[in-house]
């Protein structure tokens, strides 16, 4: 009996230190904690990464509002980061503890959505465009405009992202280019355009996997897409799709890591953030999801020249041409309400 007790005690003492090194719980997009680069981090840091995936930016608020203490880090996009700050669920970052912070493209550090009262709440991580995409074998003349998603000849072969971004798309088609500051009348016009388009739409896609399935099953030939992601998944399935930025321009997005207020796992969280901003994390996500990197120095160091060019890392004009998502604040309701009204028709 006594020997068992001693053995148990010894065992628990030996197991103790491994235990104490802790975990970091992240609520994030698929691919952002891919084993290809996270396994090494877990080994190096002794921090176990436990990930829960979201399907949309809309998942962050409900998950965090239903009580804290579950997640340590989250990765909302730049249109949702301000909401997280407003909700009071995230805390300011200690940017001095983040090596590589000064290598982030200045354009991203200038974004208002990740800062408040002189403090940064979000660490830029990856970016890309909401490009458009078509099936190569379905077109003789490649589409170049958003108006091609309103082409009656493509009836039943069109898909559009089930998101308030549909309003941004329709507004640009209408020639309203200040898409994040639309007036009520402009939103009404965008709504009318989407209602007009509705009979041509096969299905509004809600998840990345759903859009891939729609192309794979031959249901749709043109849609918008998260540039780099679904097209590479489709390429792996042997379906050739081409991404394009329409003449009306495309929206751009950036995802940022945010630290959940009063996390008990701060040490592991900062180790994790440092890794994500380093070559390991920056090229990790570029290789897995096909998204561009925010750390200019890291991208230069770990990408091949081809990948560096393909992800527009050397092309500041490309970034400037994108309509980077902006928090809508009080106007958020007007946009979502208009999109819901379109779907209700």
């Amino acid at each position: 009996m006594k020997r068992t007790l001693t053995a148990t005690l010894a065992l628990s003492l030996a197991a103790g230190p491994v235990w104490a090194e802790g975990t970091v719980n992240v609520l994030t997009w698929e691919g952002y904690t891919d084993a290809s680069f996270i396994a090494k981090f877990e080994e190096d840091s002794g921090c176990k990464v436990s990930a829960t995936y979201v399907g949309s930016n809309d998942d962050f608020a409900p998950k965090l509002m239903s009580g804290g203490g579950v997640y340590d880090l989250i990765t909302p996009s730049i249109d949702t980061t301000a909401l997280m700050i407003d909700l009071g669920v995230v805390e300011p970052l200690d940017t001095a503890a983040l090596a590589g912070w000064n290598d982030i493209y200045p354009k991203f550090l200038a974004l208002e959505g990740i800062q408040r009262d002189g403090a940064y709440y979000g660490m830029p991580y990856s970016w890309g465009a909401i490009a458009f995409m078509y099936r190569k074998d379905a077109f003789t003349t490649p589409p170049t405009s958003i108006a091609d998603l309103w082409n009656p000849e493509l009836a039943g072969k069109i898909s559009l992202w089930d998101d308030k971004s549909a309003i941004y798309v329709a507004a640009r088609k209408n020639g309203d280019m200040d898409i994040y500051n639309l007036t009520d009348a402009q939103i009404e016009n965008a709504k009318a355009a989407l209602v007009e388009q509705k009979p041509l739409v096969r299905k509004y896609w809600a998840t990345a996997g759903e859009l891939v399935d729609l192309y794979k099953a031959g249901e749709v030939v043109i849609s918008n897409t998260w540039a780099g992601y679904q097209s590479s998944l489709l390429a792996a399935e042997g379906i050739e799709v081409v991404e394009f930025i329409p003449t009306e321009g495309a929206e751009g997005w950036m995802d940022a890591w945010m630290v959940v207020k009063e996390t008990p796992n701060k040490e592991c969280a900062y180790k994790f953030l440092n890794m994500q901003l380093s070559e390991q994390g920056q090229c990790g996500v570029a290789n897995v999801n096909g998204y561009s990197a925010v750390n200019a120095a890291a991208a230069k160091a770990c990408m091949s020249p081809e990948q560096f060019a393909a992800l527009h890392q050397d092309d500041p004009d490309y970034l400037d041409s994108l309509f980077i998502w902006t928090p809508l604040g009080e106007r958020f309701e007007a946009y979502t309400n208009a999109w819901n009204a379109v779907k209700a028709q």
Partner: protein
Amino acid sequence: MTLLRRHLAGVLVLGIPLAWIVIFMLVPYAIIGTYSFWTKTYPTFQPDFQFGNYATLFTDPQYLQVLLRTLKISALVSVASLALAYPFAYWLVFRCRSAGVRTWLYMAVIAPLWVSYLLRAYIWKTILGTEGILNSFLMWAGFTDAPSDIFLYNQFAMILTLTYIFIPFMVMPIYTALERIPPNLAEASADLGQTPWQTFRKVTLPLSTPGIAAGFTLTFCLSFGDFIAPFLVGGPDGNLIAGVIQTQFGSALNWPLGSALSIVMLVIVLSIVSLSDRLERSSRIGAH
């Protein structure tokens, strides 16, 4: 001591289920009911007592539109299920001679309930799709030259999928109701010179009304609250009420409006249940 023990047993047997109902049913209803009077203010919502959310539901046409569509789809699913389930159950009970065949066929209808709902709904996608099984068959059989996209991503696909999924809930109560009818009633009716059709109309059908009412209520209410079928096989015109509620709690971050919508939905479902209950009871009284 024995008194205490008896008391304890009573507390356990009745108290735990009661606590369960209070904690997991009544309290959530109360919370949803409370939320429905709150006000949405960016970034979230705040305690209040006002009827604005309910007013929105009845003044903004989008909610009424979806509500009516959901009622229509649920009604069509129930009617389709009834049209298929009644003759089947009738045949099983009165015409099928072999008890073994009857059991096997009955089980065949019930068995899909053991397969995940999600999986069954998903499979309809592969059947109805443009390059799906149905189109391949039609082209192989020479009925069509080109694949058609009319089978999937529309209201027809939703009604078909929901009917397939919920039909066991129609078969079971009707089968049970028909099985309970004593066979000598039909014989007596025939002896009194009634034709089989008159017997069915005047004896069998009235006696099976409780089963029809129960089946109709189940299929209707299940379809009414469904949000998987619209997501998987519904098209752009397939938004149903449960999906709208989900949007209000998710992307719109308008829990008060979502709660008001849930309360309206609850009231509709409860009215249907009590209506069917009344119908069942009156038909039982009529039978005596």
